């Protein structure tokens, strides 16, 4: 049985890419998603938001709590959508990862990246480097996303192994963030707990 997609790309403006999850608030920041059909690109979720698709409108204008909006105004979801902001990290080609060279396709379906695949992806140092190159000014939750991503990754190892795996990983992380000490320490402290 084919695996179900969990989100769909609905807007592409350069690196500002929005996707709509099938279910609201189910994709925490730091989750890895991938497209598979036309091309295979791995994305990281950097933010979630509600966006009014009518230019200039805002759900705040309704003046009622968010959980009441759909009940009272069912049509509201036609204009107000829960979206996630995603960022392309790497391209997958025959099980090898490369720098992103192709554009994602509009309405491409997104699938969750499995744990084992997350391991393989993070073992590529260029992916870690790509994470460090994400503009924190445009994506202010970048560091939190990285913390979540790495925490989930290290949780896959048993407790005894975890610290050693983290120590092995740190030189790559440290090298990638060599120009941003504050972010590096925020991430390390967030990951080690």
């Amino acid at each position, binding site marked *: 049985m084919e695996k179900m997609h969990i989100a769909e790309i609905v807007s592409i403006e350069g690196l500002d890419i929005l996707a709509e999850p099938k279910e609201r608030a189910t994709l925490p920041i730091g989750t890895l998603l991938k497209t598979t059909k036309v091309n295979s690109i791995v994305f990281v979720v950097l933010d979630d938001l509600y966006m009014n698709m009518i230019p200039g409108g805002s759900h705040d204008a309704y003046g009622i709590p968010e959980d009441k909006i759909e009940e009272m105004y069912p049509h509201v979801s036609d204009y107000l959508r829960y979206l996630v902001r995603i960022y392309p990290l790497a391209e997958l080609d025959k099980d090898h990862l490369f720098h992103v060279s192709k554009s994602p396709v509009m309405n491409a379906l997104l699938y969750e990246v499995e744990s084992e695949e997350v391991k393989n992806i993070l073992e590529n140092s260029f992916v870690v480097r790509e994470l460090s190159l994400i503009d924190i000014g445009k994506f202010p939750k970048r560091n939190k996303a990285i913390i979540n991503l790495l925490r989930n990754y290290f949780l896959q190892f048993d407790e005894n192994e975890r*610290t050693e795996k983290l*120590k092995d990983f740190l*030189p790559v992380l*440290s090298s990638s963030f*060599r120009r941003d*000490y*504050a972010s590096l*320490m925020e991430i*390390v402290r967030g990951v*080690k707990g």
Partner: protein
Amino acid sequence: MENEYIGYIVSGSFGEGLTFKVNTFVNPENIRIGDFVVVEGKNMDYLCVIDDIRLKATTDEVFFDPPVDEEVDGGIEKIAASSYIYNEISIFPYLALPKSANVFGTTVKTLPTHFAKVRNVRSQDFLRIIPQKNAFFIGTPLTSSERLYIDLEKLSMRNTGLFGITGSGKSFLARIIFAGLIKQGISTLLVFDMHNEHGRSIRTEDGRSIDSLASLFPDRVKIFDVSTANKDANKYIEISYKDVEPEDIALVEDQLKFSPKSLETLEIVAQKESNWLEYLLDIYDNISDKKGEAERLGVNLESLDALVRHLKKLKTLDFLKNIGKSNSINEIIENLENGVSVVVQFSGNYRDDRLTYYFVSNVITRRIFEKFSEQSEGSIKNRVTIAIEEAHKFLSKQYEATNIFGRIAREMRKFNVTLFIIDQRPSEIDPEVLSQIGTRLVMELKDENDISAVFQGSSHSKRLVKILSTLEQKQALVFGYAVPLPLPINVRPYDEEFVKEMKDIKKKNAKDEIY
């Protein structure tokens, strides 16, 4: 096996040396000033000595939010911060080791490239330092146990200086080298043994008795003593009045407490009276018309009286006699010419007596100088090494160039006679003499002036000063003619093993160990 690679080259120049960055997981506290490392170049390996360690940071931010201590999180934050904080080590390449094994090192003429790996030194690297058959095991590196060798043949060809504060271990190191020179037949020694340490036996630190030179080599070392109290002596020294020159008295003017005019008065009397010492010690007191005598000699009466009074101290030296030319000094010279080393000791009432030591050493050495300089250059087959302690007394700046030890230091190499000077105050030695020293063995020194003095005339002095400042007791920095690179060493112990090795009939040298 622990990873022996500890870093990689990041910068350098031919004159200033190289710098390497320490690898992240290497504990920098295990790296010590004076350690040896090898840089693996493409065509050559380079044997280097560490002479500086620096802590570096790429940004000040790290100091406002430093990583927590290793005890708190097992070192996670420190590893993370390793791109921002690191250790940089300065090294200097002294020897180029060709890639082929068993080929000895050569002068460095090239440099390795960026990112050349730096590793800990291996035993095989040390074996490629000295190719000569006279390599002698002198000690081990400061932080490992491989053997380090010096070339005793080269050491004996020029003057040698052994420097260090009291208690640094100079006597033990001197004795080790003397034993090596005698054992390998490289040089005949004349040792002025101020503290009676190089005779039959000595006491170790834990109070045991252990053989010294005369017991190690009974056929090749003789003991002469100024005191008949020494039953170990082969001969007793007598010095005739006729053996003494004014210069010998000048050397001990402090011990005789001369007044300012005394020396001048002495020189005048010595010019006027052929048996001046007999005159001053034995005859003058019996002269009734002392004023007339002073006028005859052309000196001030009070100065003459003072001179005679001060010289009376020489009357306490029983070995100083009004006899014809003494035979004992001739016997010393004959022994040296026949390849038998001589240890001159000062026992009984003369033990640790500076007056006796300086006086006797100067008289004997001057006779040797006169005898050897009569011969033609190169005719003396036996190399002679004269060892003196408290050398600053004999070789200080205040004495003129005619001082006998200074002349030997400057002139006697062509006659195969060199000095081995042992001293704790090298800053008081004439800089010209210091510059004549071929090999320097420097132990613990504290005084800044002394430290500057030992490096006078040597290259890489700034670098070597840092190494010297970390030395402890029984450690030495050896550099100069006898070694192709400066060797910071733990001096090998003078113990039963050493004694056994010296007494071993089968001659074993470094070449046996290498091949």
